[in-house]
């Protein structure tokens, strides 16, 4: 081992061989530290680094334009560049290997020294002797004065061994000395090792030295990793043995098929995904499958999935979940999401992955009372609800196979209750999903990674020292090493890499002037909602009923009339006067201004050959529209959740063939191939922006080649009008990239669902100007949320670039 001599020892006031020995060991430790750093920071030959940098730059630039469409030659060049880069990286690895080994050697020395020095803070002769032996062993770089120190220490320790009494005297003297003498700088551990922990409790004590941890004691490993458990036999098939004894045999052909079936059903490693044939309506993208395989194979089920928005992190997580479920590795599953996404997750898991989850509102979940978390195997809950005092202890007690946290950027703060809660969950596999893992600084990224793999990025202090620029917590240093460490736990696919580009979207709002009769009805319904709204009015009407009523009033008179009628027929009628007035007004509405605008749109503003997908939330409105369109001579097909599968197929086929319009409710058309249509009309507007996004997503998806046009019908002064104002005018929602609206809503820092927010705003306002004012405030909040999202996105793009795509 070649090394520079150490700095000369600091003269001490009074000879104390033990203290000098410790001081020497501390300096040796510092020296080892420097050596580690020295060897770790070695670079490859200059020409190699230069060439590598050039190829990296070429690949980066070429990859950036890849999404715009590389021609064949361009693709070949990119592939060739990557091949050369791999070769160069291997050459660099070869060149750096001796340095890496040297660094490893010094790390080991550092670890041993740190551990020995920590133990030798006490006065046990054995520990002092061990330290002496170690220092002697490493003694080559010592100066002459150090050798004297060693000699004196050796003599002193020998004396202590012979005269144990002297040891205790010296120990006392040492303590007094320690009180009056300044502690050695940078001596690891300090006096803390004396806090009553001794060698006997070695298992955990040894781990106070991080360096020592790099080579764990096999006994320690054995303590935590149990030996293979005894083979368990599933309850034996008595019947089989009895039939064997009685010589009652099956046909040999059946036996052969049985053997084939047994072989076919064997589960091996994660070379292929077994779940793919079980998916329903999932557009199959190679990068998503590669991500799932990488998460299971290389990351062993603990990963940070931070694809750019709209690339399908939910699908990737679903693939992992389904694959683990198919293989019998995940039975107990918990999905934590923001409140607004609970329903969406549940629907996606059911519709696309055929896995049923319970939510906290389910009667099945409630039926189990306090033991629900233990009793229910698959649950989706909002993080907010899960971490509440009522639930968190039950969840902590439950051992999950898989936990998925969506919008995991809410866990960026290590001091937050959310972070601590997730950190305490017991789970074999953990997936964190976010498009923006780092927003303000690198610590946030560190905190997320630490949830997955504590220590992957070292301790907080080491991380900052090694990977964060001192003057700027947002800027990383040692990028290459940081990237290598992150690649073990993180996947980030970008649009440019996966060539997932969609045509633009263009939204138009058609403002519908309501007739006086329609306006009167709408106002009457609004009065009723405000009067009965819980917490605001007398609260005698259920929130969900009011929400439905107000939304129906924004849709069609047919829809609202049906609900008002149903409410009137109930045994107990609240706000009967208001209800009767609304019913009377509903009966008086004869025409529909919105329907006229829709017909006008179809007849005059759009090309006669243009297929149009019209969305409404309500069956009554759908039926009404179909009548109106028929009367107007416009051929229309229909789609709703009440149709059988065959009827749905027939209606979609008719739309593709010869019907110009498809009037659809929000239910059930996901995954249908509607690429031939690129015009969407929102006849009424769901209050949840994610639902609007889903509607547009039916035609704005892979395979769509035309720009997508979206027409929104809304009357000024209605709740829908205000929603449209904040979503369209303020944040340009309809022209955002798919998925971005979810990110923006996530940045709203709001526990309520969006529809609850808007209903609260609407119901609590006593006039339209007041409502407008409140919606304007909401718009400003959304603008702020969008700005925060864009900042995060820009930061993450700069931080991660294209380096973390799933491997093929």
């Amino acid at each position, binding site marked *: 081992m070649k090394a520079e001599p150490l700095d000369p020892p600091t003269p001490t006031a009074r000879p104390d061989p033990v203290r000098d020995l410790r001081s020497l060991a501390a300096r040796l430790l510092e020296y080892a530290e420097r050596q580690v750093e020295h060897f770790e920071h070695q670079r490859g030959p200059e020409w190699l680094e230069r060439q590598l940098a050039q190829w990296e730059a070429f690949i980066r630039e070429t990859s950036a334009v890849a999404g715009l469409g590389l021609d064949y030659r361009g693709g070949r060049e990119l592939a060739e560049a990557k091949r050369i880069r791999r070769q160069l990286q291997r050459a660099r690895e070869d060149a750096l290997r001796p340095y890496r080994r040297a660094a490893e050697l010094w790390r080991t020395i550092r670890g041993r020294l740190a551990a020995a020095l920590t133990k030798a803070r006490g006065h046990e002769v054995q520990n002092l002797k061990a330290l002496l032996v170690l220092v002697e062993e490493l003694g080559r770089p010592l100066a002459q004065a150090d050798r004297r120190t060693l000699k004196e220490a050796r003599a002193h320790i020998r004396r202590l061994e012979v005269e144990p009494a002297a040891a205790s005297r010296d120990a006392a003297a040492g303590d007094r000395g320690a009180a009056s003498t300044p502690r050695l700088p940078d001596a690891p551990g*300090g*006096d*803390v090792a*004396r*806090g009553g922990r001794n060698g006997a409790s070695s298992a*955990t004590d040894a781990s*106070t030295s*991080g*360096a020592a*941890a790099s080579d764990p004691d096999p006994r*320690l*490993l054995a303590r*935590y*990793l*149990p030996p*293979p*458990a005894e*083979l*368990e*036999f599933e309850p*034996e098939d008595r019947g*089989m*043995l*009895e039939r064997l004894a009685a*010589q*009652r045999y*099956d046909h*040999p*052909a*059946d*036996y052969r*098929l*049985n*053997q*084939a*079936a*047994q*072989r076919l*059903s*064997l*589960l091996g490693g994660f*070379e292929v995904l*077994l779940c*793919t*044939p*079980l998916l329903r309506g999932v557009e199959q993208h190679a990068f998503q499958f590669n991500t799932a395989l990488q998460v*299971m194979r290389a990351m*062993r089920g603990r990963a940070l999935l931070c694809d750019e928005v709209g690339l399908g992190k939910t699908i990737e997580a679903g693939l992992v979940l389904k694959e683990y479920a*198919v293989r*019998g*590795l995940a039975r107990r599953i918990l999905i934590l999401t923001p409140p607004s996404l609970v329903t969406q997750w549940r629907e996606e898991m059911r519709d696309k992955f055929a896995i049923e989850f319970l939510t906290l509102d389910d009667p099945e979940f409630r039926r189990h009372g306090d033991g629900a978390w233990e009793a229910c195997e698959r649950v989706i809950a909002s993080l907010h609800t899960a971490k509440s005092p009522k639930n968190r202890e039950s969840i902590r007690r439950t051992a999950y196979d898989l936990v998925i946290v969506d919008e995991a950027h809410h866990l960026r703060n290590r001091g937050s209750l959310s972070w601590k809660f997730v950190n305490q969950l017991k789970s*074999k596999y953990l997936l964190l999903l976010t498009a923006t893992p780092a927003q303000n600084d690198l610590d946030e990224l560190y905190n997320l990674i*630490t949830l997955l*793999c*504590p*220590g*992957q990025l*070292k*301790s907080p*202090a080491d991380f900052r020292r090694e990977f964060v620029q001192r003057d700027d917590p947002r800027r990383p240093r040692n990028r290459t090493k940081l990237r290598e460490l992150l690649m073990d736990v993180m996947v980030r696919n970008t649009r440019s890499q996966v060539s997932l580009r969609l045509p633009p979207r263009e939204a138009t709002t058609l403002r519908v002037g309501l007739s006086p009769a329609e306006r009167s009805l709408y106002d009457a319904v609004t009065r009723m909602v405000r009067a009965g709204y819980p917490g605001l009015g007398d609260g005698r009407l259920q929130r969900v009923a009011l929400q439905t009523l107000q939304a129906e009033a924004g849709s069609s008179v047919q829809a609202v009339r049906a609900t008002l009628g149903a409410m009137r027929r109930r045994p107990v009628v609240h706000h009967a006067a208001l209800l009767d007035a609304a019913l009377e007004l509903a009966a008086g509405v004869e025409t529909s201004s919105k329907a006229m605008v829709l017909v006008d749109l179809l007849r005059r503003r759009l090309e006669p050959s243009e297929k149009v997908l019209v969305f409404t939330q309500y069956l009554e409105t759908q039926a009404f529209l179909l009548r109106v369109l028929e009367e107007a001579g416009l051929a229309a097909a229909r789609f709703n959740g009440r149709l059988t599968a065959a009827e749905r197929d027939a209606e979609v086929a008719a739309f593709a063939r010869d019907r110009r319009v498809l009037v659809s409710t929000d239910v059930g058309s996901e995954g249908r191939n509607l690429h031939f249509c690129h015009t969407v009309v929102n006849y009424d507007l769901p209050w949840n922006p994610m639902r609007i996004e889903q509607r547009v997503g039916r035609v704005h998806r892979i395979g769509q080649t035309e720009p997508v046009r979206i027409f929104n019908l809304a009357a000024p002064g209605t709740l829908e009008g205000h929603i449209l104002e904040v979503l369209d005018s303020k944040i340009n929602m309809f022209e955002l990239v798919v998925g971005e609206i979810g990110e923006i809503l996530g940045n709203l820092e709001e526990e309520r669902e969006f529809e609850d927010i808007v209903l609260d705003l609407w119901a609590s306002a006593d006039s339209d100007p007041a409502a407008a004012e409140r919606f304007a405030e909401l718009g400003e909040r959304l603008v702020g949320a969008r700005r925060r999202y864009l900042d995060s996105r820009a930061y993450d793009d700069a931080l991660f670039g294209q380096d973390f795509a799933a491997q093929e």
Partner: protein
Amino acid sequence: MTVANLEPPTLDLPGFIRSCVERAGGAVDAGAPGRLDALLPPALEAAAGGRSWVRLALAADALDEGAESAALGSPFLDALIRHAAGRGTVASGCLPAGRLKRKGLRGEVEGALLFSNCRTRYPDDGADVRLSATAQFDFKVAFLSEERRERLYVVPVNLFSNQVNLALAGRLAELPVEADPAPVLPLAPLASAQAAYEVACRALRELVGRDAARHQVRVAQRFSVEFARIRGYYGEVIEQLERRRARELERAGTDSTTGPREAAPAGETGERGHPDRVARADELAQRIEAARQERERKLRELGETYGIRTRARLASVRCLWQPKAFFKVLLDRGAVTRTLVLAYDGLLERVEPPTCESCRRETSRLRASPTARLLCPACAGA
């Protein structure tokens, strides 16, 4: 013991589907490339959602709206596999007699077995041919750690000796097993199915134990990396907290060796140090303890994740009939004479080794005890 396939199968999937459907009474016709048209019997209709006719796509590119996926993992194939795995669980077959000897077996015995402490005599010149049997137990074993792998183990147990037939196990896969009824011959004495099953379970336990130990070596490598990472991380965190605590206590003028509670009672801190610092040190001590507990918990969870569990299920069993030659050997030890019945296996062309009367293991070296018990060297030595 043979171990069949270790990795996901590359079996003839269309052949399996066709055989399954036809065996159940349906019919299969090859349609367009990558497709099969199947007329399903009632027993299999449930596999296709109640339909009796189904078009099957064997690969993703053969899928269209009218075709049902029949790839591995698809509901249809899963149902078919379940159907097939639920049948044909008990079967029989005949192994060929091979080069069965009836004469000159003395030479075979003397070449293969070694008797000590006794004299051997061969009372009969020839041997009787009898029908012997081997029970072939097919076990499906799952290895569960942070992943799940499955293997099939085939354990043949010789029902005459009630021993695992290691020699046959090695050749079973290549031997022709006829479905014809066994020839009419006198039966050799056979162990019960239950006894043979217990022997098979013991052997499987040993074999799986060895495989699990090998698997454990691989798992331990991964585990140790994770373990070191977690331990190192918490070690560093604790060390830094301890350093901070020591500093706080030092500045507060108290001895850091004292525990948090006895460090400085609130009323006395004015004399000994700054109360805020002591409080901070106290808080740090709690955080240190919390970090220790968290480390312990994470390490335990890691161990639980990586710890290997193995589970076996008897998937099927088959009785393999085989004619063998049986003959007697008389063993004289002092005044006592013992009769040993040995079997000659014409297929493996060998005399089947007898079992030690103490440990019940097969042995080719037998030693007669003073009471004329026949023991293997290990038991005789003991």
